[in-house]
């Protein structure tokens, strides 16, 4: 199931009649419009990221830029199942999740540019997107560090008697962090409504899964008495079918689970990674050719008669325009000022009329 070696380029033949998961209840009841919306979301993510890469190459963006290209079906599939009560937290490869929960590309691009109009006012950058109004709790730069927070979201849901579930995303490298295991234990011990989602793209930076992880990743959950599952992440129907099962378990039974979704990133770990040392060009090409999640879903929808070539073209044109508009917006936006540096550090510093403490909060 999981990629064990970087040389694994085994072909998965395309099922003649499309995804066997198409008929899972959660997929069978999708309307044509909803299917198109799923496709559109994946295309928007890809075009946004391609545009951000160009901006990075044009030196408009600083720091790291971890692109999600190739993994789109995971974020879109999972987040398409969110109800108003569900919550999401993820790591630094967060553009896909942010767009999947419905954040506007303009402030996202502006954040990459370090502009005051960014979703985190230019204070977070690529790795630190947030939008609590959409139940999106970041964007976290420490590998695995977000997972206990995700358990905290689930704890909060349960404590406050709310209905939803939390999805806590991590990479295949993160599963080896101690904090993840502490989080698993707490979630299972306390029956918390959380789904741990391992997006297994086969690599953590330049280290293949084979070189970093003993055993099957999802199966580790069994040691914590948690349900677990694995699926292919290039097939959005499959992602949705499996996630629906585990989100339902969380929402209705308040039980956690761990799912491992096999996927792949086309680009380097970050754009600073030339990506010619730890995996072959052939491997990347092979995946792109046979398992591209957008291409596969598009073919599926063509065969279902939901998409037409003209509509595909239109969606793509709109997505490119949207990404371009986002870049223009970012370009035209102001940078934060030096005075802005010390805002958003303390709640009470930003709410001086309600300040209850005294003394100096900042030093020079």
């Amino acid at each position, binding site marked *: 199931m999981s990629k064990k070696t970087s040389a694994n380029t085994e072909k998965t033949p395309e099922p003649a009649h499309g995804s066997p998961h198409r008929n899972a209840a959660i997929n069978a009841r999708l309307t044509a419009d909803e299917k198109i919306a799923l496709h559109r979301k994946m295309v928007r993510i890809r075009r946004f990221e391609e545009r951000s890469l160009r901006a990075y190459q044009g030196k408009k963006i600083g720091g790291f830029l971890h692109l999600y290209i190739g993994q789109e079906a995971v974020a879109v599939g999972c987040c398409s199942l969110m109800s108003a009560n569900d*919550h999401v*937290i993820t790591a630094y490869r967060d553009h896909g999740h942010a767009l999947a929960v419905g954040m506007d590309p303009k402030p996202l691009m502006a954040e990459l540019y370090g502009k005051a109009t*960014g*979703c*985190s*006012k*230019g*204070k*977070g950058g690529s790795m*630190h997107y*947030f*939008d*609590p*109004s959409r139940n999106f*709790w*970041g*964007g*976290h*730069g*420490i590998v695995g*560090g977000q*997972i*206990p*927070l*995700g*358990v*905290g*979201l*689930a*704890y*909060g*849901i349960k*404590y*406050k008697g709310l209905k939803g579930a939390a999805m806590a995303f991590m990479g295949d490298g993160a599963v080896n962090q*101690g*904090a993840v*295991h*502490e*989080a698993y*234990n*707490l979630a299972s*011990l306390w029956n918390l409504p959380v789904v741990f989602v391992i997006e297994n793209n086969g690599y953590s930076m330049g280290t293949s899964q084979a070189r970093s992880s003993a055993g099957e990743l999802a199966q580790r959950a069994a040691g914590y008495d948690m349900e677990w599952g694995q699926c292919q992440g290039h097939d959005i129907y499959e992602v949705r079918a499996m996630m629906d099962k585990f989100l339902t378990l969380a929402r209705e039974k308040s039980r956690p689970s761990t799912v491992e979704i096999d996927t792949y990133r086309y680009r380097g770990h970050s754009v600073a990674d030339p990506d010619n040392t730890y995996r072959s060009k052939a491997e990347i090409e092979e995946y792109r050719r046979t398992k591209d999640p957008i291409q596969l879903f598009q073919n599926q929808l063509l065969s279902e008669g939901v998409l037409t070539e003209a509509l595909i073209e239109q969606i793509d044109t709109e997505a490119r325009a949207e990404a371009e508009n986002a870049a223009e917006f970012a370009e035209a936006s102001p940078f934060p000022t030096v005075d802005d540096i*010390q*805002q*958003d*550090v*303390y*709640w*009470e510093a*930003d*709410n001086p009329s309600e300040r*209850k*403490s*005294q*003394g*100096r*909060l*900042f*030093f020079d």
Partner: protein
Amino acid sequence: MPVITYREAIRHALAEELERDANVVVLGEEVGQFHGAYKVTEGLLAKFGPQRIVDTPISEAGFIGMGIGASMLGVRPVMELMFWSFYSVAFDQILNNAANVRYMSGGQISCPIVIRGPANGGTNVGATHSHTPENILANHPGVKVVVPATAYDAKGLLKASIRDNDPVFFLENTMLYGEKGEVPTEEYVLPLGKADVKREGTDLTIVTYGRSVLHSLAAAAVLEKEHEISTEIVDLRSIRPLDLDTVLASVAKTHRVLVVEEQKPFCSVGSQLAYMIQREAFDELDAPIHKLATIDAPAIYSPPVEVEQLPNPQRVIKAALQAMA
């Protein structure tokens, strides 16, 4: 006024805040059925039940991180670290998440969490259990660091900490749990960042906090009696926010300063204080600022020697005499 222990004062603050706000929960290792490793939470489980008083596994990174996540959703967790020394195990969560999340989200997310528990040395438990993390914690903008010295302060400051919308690290000195003090039965809350002049004097200002306040008070009595030195003692009560104004007012009165802290001396809270005092009150000073800290080595186990490694009244007297020379 009733006289109760520092430990009881903290317990009363917890109970009152649990009573007042249903979002407040207490979580930590052994806080429930075992009544807390230092018995601070004794009786709370019986009163508030297992939903509010939650025993956690030994899992500092996990449960502190969980508390931070829950606080982002509006729960107000009060987390007990069995010893503050174990902050190192949860350091990533404390500093990367609690301290940063508000900033990195551009002010969209607040983190109203309190992390509290016993800190400091003096109980002969060696280097792993005697940390004084206030300088390391206070070095990070986005957090507050509170260090109460008396039962009265502990209660009033903990109540303020629980009501605060920023992450507050509340450092209780293990050696103070049994200390008694007057604590009113009526409700009161002390603002964070307000220093307290624990003793008035005219010749020397001792700026201090935590257990060193008690050592300084004991030393001041001797200095008065045997050396005719009148010492003013300023208890900071909180490191961030910091009340420098009260310190400067005292310096303007005495013109001499001794900083006493139960910290390692290098890059300490006292180092920063000395810098700020000389910068803002240089003309007031009649002598260099002196500083007394823990002797610069990991905490020694050997009981009689640990007493000498830490500030104690004799060491304070000696340092005060140097400051007066």
